[in-house]
């Protein structure tokens, strides 16, 4: 399995990254190197080993179902590139 320039462009688009042709070409090399290493790892027999889903095996701590005070409304909108007094404002999204 190897990564093509089209794969990189497709993934870049999904991740909303804008890449120059040079950057895309260098990522093709990097990703193929990574896949090459994975192929090396694949020589190890892991059929008896369950997949590692998380580094911690202790289990999630749960939070009591209590509401604390929210972030202040002005604070919440403060860092947005655009907002009115109620809402975040973003370029029109057509569904």
């Amino acid at each position, binding site marked *: 399995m190897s990564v093509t320039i089209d794969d990189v462009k*497709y993934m870049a*688009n*999904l991740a*909303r990254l804008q890449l120059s042709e040079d950057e895309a070409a260098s990522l093709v090399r990097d990703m193929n190197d990574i896949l090459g290493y994975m192929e090396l790892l694949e020589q190890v027999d892991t059929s008896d080993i369950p997949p590692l*889903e*998380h580094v*911690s*095996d*202790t*289990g*999630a*701590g*749960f*939070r*009591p*179902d*209590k*509401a*604390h*005070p*929210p*972030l202040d*409304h002005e604070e*919440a*909108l403060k*860092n947005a590139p*655009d907002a*009115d007094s*109620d*809402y*975040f*404002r*973003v*370029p*029109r*999204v*057509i*569904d």
Partner: protein
Amino acid sequence: MSVDTQFETVIGLEVHAQLLTESKAFAPVSNRFGSAPNTNVTPLCLGHPGTLPVPNENLIRYAVKLGLATNCKIRPKSIFARKNYFYPDMPKGYQISQFETPICYEGHMDIGLEDGSTKRIGITRIHMEEDAGKSIHDQDPHNTLIDLNRAGTPLLEIVSEPDIRSPQEAGAYMRKIWQIVRYLGVCDGNMEEGSLRCDANVSIRPAGQKEFNIRTEIKNLNSFRNVERALTYEVERQKELVLSGGSVIQQTLLWDPNEMRTRQMRSKEEAHDYRYFPEPDIPPVLVTDEMLEEIRLEIPELPEARRLRYISQFGLTDYDASVLTEDRPLADFFESILEQGASAKPAANLIITEIRRVLNEKGMAITTFPVGPERLAGLLALRGEDKISSSAMQTLLDAMVDAGPDSAASAGELAQEMNLLQVSDTGFLDPIVEEVLRNNPEEVKRYLGGKHGLIGFFIGQIMKKSQGKANPGMVRELVQKKITEFK
């Protein structure tokens, strides 16, 4: 394929239930509906860096509760996953959901069909996830406005097996889910406000074929009626398409309840490449045996069991038991009247005919019914002791409702005040009976000649003269006794 081809409908439903928790799924902030925009938010809901999600214990507990109530297996260890996509109402760039290891799986529910039989519908999985915020497209001509109050609201997604074979079965399945989530108290079941939402996958195949054909997905089914209508429309559309030589293409459709038809949603460019991976910020969710037992004990008697108990314990008809147990608050209300000493059958009748009439007329929920169980039991006792007529009971109930929740007047006091107590006193009734008999010599003659059906006529006249206060049983006896004196 010819016009005579018999088609079989194949439907699977995906239901989203918004949970009735105090706080959001992963952030300790209010989960209330209807607050001012962007006020129930934390840095986590806004997708700020450096924040960490911590699961709400009730997200886990409610999921397990619903899983147990729908006969699911519960995974002792399940993990959250990230579902990646960019949309402004999901500022993190991913939705925390579950993918390969849903917390509940392989369950089932039995639904009642119209012919009285039941059918088992498999439940593939129930998983936990968070909701997105709300995008508003129609308030500003150049921008989309974003409210993140709903971002992070806890949801359960309940996925059925493609076991449903008709729009009616789909409706029955949906009602059953509604009933169960309300009985468990995990979701308010309000489809119009979107706290219970349904998407349907539907395809058709020639009867006898084993493989499934291409399906379409219908979104925006915001009422039981729309579930049935949209599916009926879509099944017909697919049949006509196939019979005219076309083929169904996989697409997402939106039900338009005003136009009564489905239409295609504009498809997003890279459809469904969500690149799920395990959520690194949340360790695995462990459900211990102790937790499981604790939650099992919290599950109330479910509608089916309650309906059967009403039939066996109280001798109610299947119909009455079904009506009373359809929604938990109504069944609870019924039982609270019984706790005040009322007998089951009259109490059931009072609720089913009179109280439901009032609820309908006033657009009221049983939870806000202004007359409490104690006073209703008093009303039933008056009727049981034959102190008031059945029409007086109706009048009294209306008066008690109109007096509102602050009124403490008992049914007996009101009956006295409104002059509705039946009179069994012969000193009062004798003269009226005699007068009526005297004034209707023709009818008396015919009665004595064998026309005994005329008794109703006399009783009617006497009831009228007594302004409805006479006890009809008593009147009947008096008429039968006194009329012989006219021989």
